[in-house]
């Protein structure tokens, strides 16, 4: 066993995990507190990436691009809540799915219209574009360390906000019993708009962080949103803590599967079939985990306390 490689792959798994957490945090709050299924959460992730790509090209600075794109994505989230989502709270889940699926199509077409179909690269400053040397001749990209740090900082910030502030108390209360919060005279409409906008900004941040690695492209959110739903189901809907733990689990399982599963399979099958089936199996692993959680603990690992 090459422990250096193992460490690198752990870091890669954590990096994927924090990225999923950024996406899942908003999703789980919106689902848990407002009981609203938002398929278009992935579109906000995409819009964050495109806003950032455009601003980076205009300002020539990645940091400035992110700082400016964050409030822009939050504003977009707030507008989406105001124009589309607000009218749907009283409807059932099927209507949510239909409406937000429509939103996905609108956003994808809008991006095609404004930015074209080719996608956009985000150039990084030299210091972020390099790598650091670890023990045993291994290297790790600086930018991925930045992703991990940003994700952990956001997790810490959300923890403090949810556990130790008045807004957080209301959010927790909303996740547990919405009707009671309303009955106590809290302006639930404002709270919902705030949560939706913050969720949008977090999703946008995830998009801004992944785009320099892959690129901003149409439909980039539609693939990852499925995984984000898996994360919130495993973690327990409405729970930030659950989202964090589940995102880490999913990130690590996915990365470790991609890294070591083919070697494991080679022990008992031919190397060609091991190489072909390993990517398929590792792509399935997170869904198997979800199925197991649903079978043995359908409320998720850390469900918010209800009643």
């Amino acid at each position, binding site marked *: 066993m090459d422990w250096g490689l193992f460490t690198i792959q752990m870091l890669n798994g954590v990096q994927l995990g924090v990225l999923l957490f950024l996406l899942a945090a908003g999703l789980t709050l919106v689902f848990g507190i407002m009981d609203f299924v938002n398929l278009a959460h992935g579109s906000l992730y995409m819009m964050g990436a495109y806003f950032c790509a455009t601003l980076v090209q205009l300002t020539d600075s990645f940091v400035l691009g992110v700082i400016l794109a964050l409030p822009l994505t939050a504003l977009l989230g707030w507008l989406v809540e105001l124009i589309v989502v607000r009218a749907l709270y009283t409807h059932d889940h099927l209507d949510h799915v239909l409406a937000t699926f429509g939103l996905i199509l609108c956003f994808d077409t809008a991006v095609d219209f404004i930015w074209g179909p080719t996608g956009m690269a985000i150039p990084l400053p030299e210091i972020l574009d390099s790598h650091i040397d670890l023990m045993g001749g291994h290297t790790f990209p600086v930018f991925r360390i930045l992703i991990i740090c940003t994700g952990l900082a956001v997790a810490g910030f959300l923890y403090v906000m949810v556990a130790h502030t008045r807004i957080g108390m209301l959010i927790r209360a909303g996740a547990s019993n919405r009707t009671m919060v309303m009955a106590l005279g809290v302006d639930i409409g404002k709270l919902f708009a705030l949560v939706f906008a913050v969720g949008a900004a977090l999703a946008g941040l995830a998009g801004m962080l992944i785009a320099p690695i892959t690129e901003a*492209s149409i439909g980039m959110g539609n693939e990852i949103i499925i995984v984000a739903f898996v994360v919130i189901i495993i973690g327990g809907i409405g729970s930030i803590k659950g989202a964090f733990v589940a995102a880490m689990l999913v990130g690590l399982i996915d990365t470790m599967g991609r890294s070591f599963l083919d070697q494991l399979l080679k022990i008992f099958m031919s190397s060609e079939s091991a190489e*072909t089936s390993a990517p398929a199996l590792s792509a399935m692993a997170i869904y198997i985990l979800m199925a197991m959680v649903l079978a043995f603990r359908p409320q998720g690992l850390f469900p918010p306390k209800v009643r």
Partner: protein
Amino acid sequence: MIKKITALAAMGAFLAAPAMAADKVKIGFVTTITTPAGVIGQDMVDAVNLAMEDIGGKMAGLDVELIIEDDGFKPPVGKQKVDKLVKKDKVDFIGGFIWSHVLLAAKKPALDSGTFLISSNAGPSQLAGKQCDKNFFSTSWQNDQTPMAMGEVLNQNGVKSVYVMAPNYAAGKNMIAGVERTFKGKIAGRDLTKWGKDAQLDFSAELAKAKASGAEALWVFYPGKAGGALIKQYEQAGLRDTMPLYTVFTVDSIALPKLQAGNLQGVLGSRNTQHWGPDLDNPQNKKFVAGFKKKYGHYPSFYAAQSYDTIFLIKSAVEAVNGDLSNKDGIRAAMKKADFPSTRGKFSYGNNHFPIQNFYLREVVADADGVWTTKIVSTVLENHQDPYAADCKM
């Protein structure tokens, strides 16, 4: 009841009428227009439209009708579209196909009905070997050939061990088989990654494995947007200093503008193999590249060059039979001669209807205007035929 019968009879007469005389050449073209891979399809459609303009919309005096269909990057959708082109539109030729797995799924309805099927890109080993068909032609290459040329380049550069990465689908496996066929050194490791509409774009785990394998070089096949992503991550992981990158179908004129916009200098000077290049010196290619750049404002990709060739191949066959589209044997014999101006220059068809052609080593350079493009360095394989031709009983 009587009403129904008359209606049916009328419908029958209506359907039968247009089949009487071939007053135009109908060409179906199936490619990927939606999904992020639609960028490739757009380049192909642009080239086909340019070719239609260059031939004045006519072949042997007949009007040409072009029907473009989107396969959505999905094999079953590709098959439905070919079904529709054959049964509803009754086309004479079907061209296009970026993806090997889509072509393999979609070929049956076309070939069963005797419609000519021309791959403008995909070159799966099955169609070159045991499943070759008299009505199937390629204006591209067989999947193994380009990586075989790259294997030779690796040998020439004295590379002793290489780590290979490709997407997990028909062409990815062919490409790996191709490079292993000619490369004499050791394959230090192999990775096949998830492909399709939700393809994997983050290669952190795979690149870490490649680095840990201690291989002297990294070889990859990543067409479309995955290519740009991979090169960026290769740079960020600092592999450039220790593991030179060799690619096929990854660095092309679709990826290069984005890499240039992102200022990824590392790709300059990187080398890849191909049967064609925008600087290849022949009159048809000069006309094509200049026309394409004038109309669309950027370099054409190899996908575009092959699509342009597809229209000229069809034209040469339609003219050889003087527009008599019912003369299938005549059309087939004419296509087999490859007697048309190709962007790659003169080539011939093998028994399996795949081109026997040269493969070149290309280097990424900035052109006179500072635009990143490729320049042909040398010829790696001359008049090369794919290794599956022997399995084709034709």
